[in-house]
Every structure is written in C-alpha cells, then in structure tokens.
C-alpha cells in the first residue's frame, strides 16, 4: 500500500485540461509501479463516460478506474495544479488538487480510503495542501498508519 509517498506527490504540475491532469496524476502511480499504463487510460475513459462526478469536494478530484483495469498495488498519488483546471463540475470547479486512486479489491483499499478521508475531511488540511512549499511541509497532516 502506498499513500502519498514522496514519489507519489508533485506540487507543481502544469496541466491545461482534465485529461492532462488525470494523466499526470496517474503517471505518478505508473512510475511507482502501482498501476499499469492501461489504468491511466481507463481513468480517462471513465471521465469521458461518466463525467466529472469524481470531483468530490471543492477543488478536489479523485479520478480512478476499476481494479481489473491494471492495479498492481493499492496506492494514491497527488498532484497540485499550478493553474486551476475546469472539469465541468456544477459545484466544485475549478480543480486544484488531483488524487489518483489505484483501486484494489484488498483490505488495503479500504485502509487507503480511510486515510484519504482523514486527510480530506478537514478544511484546514486542504488549505494547507494548497499552500505548502514542499513535500516535507505536508508530512504533519499525512497521518500514520
């Protein structure tokens, strides 16, 4: 299980479209060998098919696909967009933070989501993620196991 480890976080991503942003966040998962490249395409296909429903809260998008689309290990990456990107969500646009979720069928998937919820259910955490200068600055709010 990989939860926002150092190599899964990029605080300075320049993306000009939702697909570009999803691809950048997914690429971190692929580079860490948590998902196959096909999984990134599956996340983008899901966006095209189901729309931006995964923009779950103001400025937050959590793209994902199905475990069988190419997940090797339950993992979550995060990118912060230099310029906010409009995903087409009626309430939560524009998106500033994109968390790519490698959804597995294991218990780890549940643990991963619980940690993500602990992180994102507090507004001050989100404000901090929008402002931090370095990965080091994020550590206090990432939480333990």
């Amino acid at each position, binding site marked *: 299980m990989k939860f926002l480890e150092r190599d899964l976080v990029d605080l300075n991503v320049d993306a000009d479209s939702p697909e570009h942003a999803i691809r950048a966040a997914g690429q971190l998962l692929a580079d860490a060998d948590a998902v196959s490249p096909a999984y990134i395409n599956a996340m983008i296909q899901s966006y095209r098919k189901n*729309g931006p429903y995964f923009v*779950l*809260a103001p400025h937050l998008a*959590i793209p994902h696909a199905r*475990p069988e689309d190419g997940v090797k290990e339950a993992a979550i990456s995060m990118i912060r967009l230099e310029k906010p990107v409009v995903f087409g969500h009626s309430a939560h646009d524009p998106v500033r933070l994109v968390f790519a979720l490698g959804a597995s069928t294991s218990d780890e998937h549940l643990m991963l989501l619980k940690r993500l919820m602990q992180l*994102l259910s507090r507004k001050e955490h989100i404000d901090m993620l929008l402002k931090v200068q370095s990965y080091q600055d994020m550590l206090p709010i990432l939480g333990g196991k």
Partner: protein
Amino acid sequence: MKILCVCGLGQGTSLILRMNVETVLNELGVTADVEHMDVSSASSMQADYIITNSELAKSLGDHDATIILVENYFDQEEIKTALEKHLSQ
C-alpha cells in the same frame, strides 16, 4: 431500510460516501443496510434510498427509491443535514 451509495464505478467514490454515511447514521442512531455500487447496478437494485450527487442522479431518474443528493462526499455535516431531512419525512 436499505440505502445505496452510488458512484460511476462503484469502487472508490461510493465507498468513501458509504463510510461517511455510516458514520452519520451512527450519530443519528439509525440502523440501515448500507451498500455501495456503481450507477448501472443501482438502477436495477431495490432500495429505500439512494445517495448520490446531482451529476449521477440524472441516470437514476426512474428509480423507485428516494434520491438523496450529496454534493460534497467528504462533508459529514452536509450528509447529516441531507439524511435528517429525508429520513424524518
């Protein structure tokens, strides 16, 4: 009482919603059978309530269940307000 938490794929988003809904139901002292699934499975599943967002609710228009809309899946206050409003009716 059966409640479905619904997202596009039934993998991540709906599970997040379900965990928050279960927390809120606990606080409200309500016992319910809560499941999470994708929107197409939900459309053919019997339920009393379906919790989803307005983006996906469009595809569930002809479902018998009462649709409860939640826009911020992380906001337990919003979920609580929405549930209280519908469950008391």
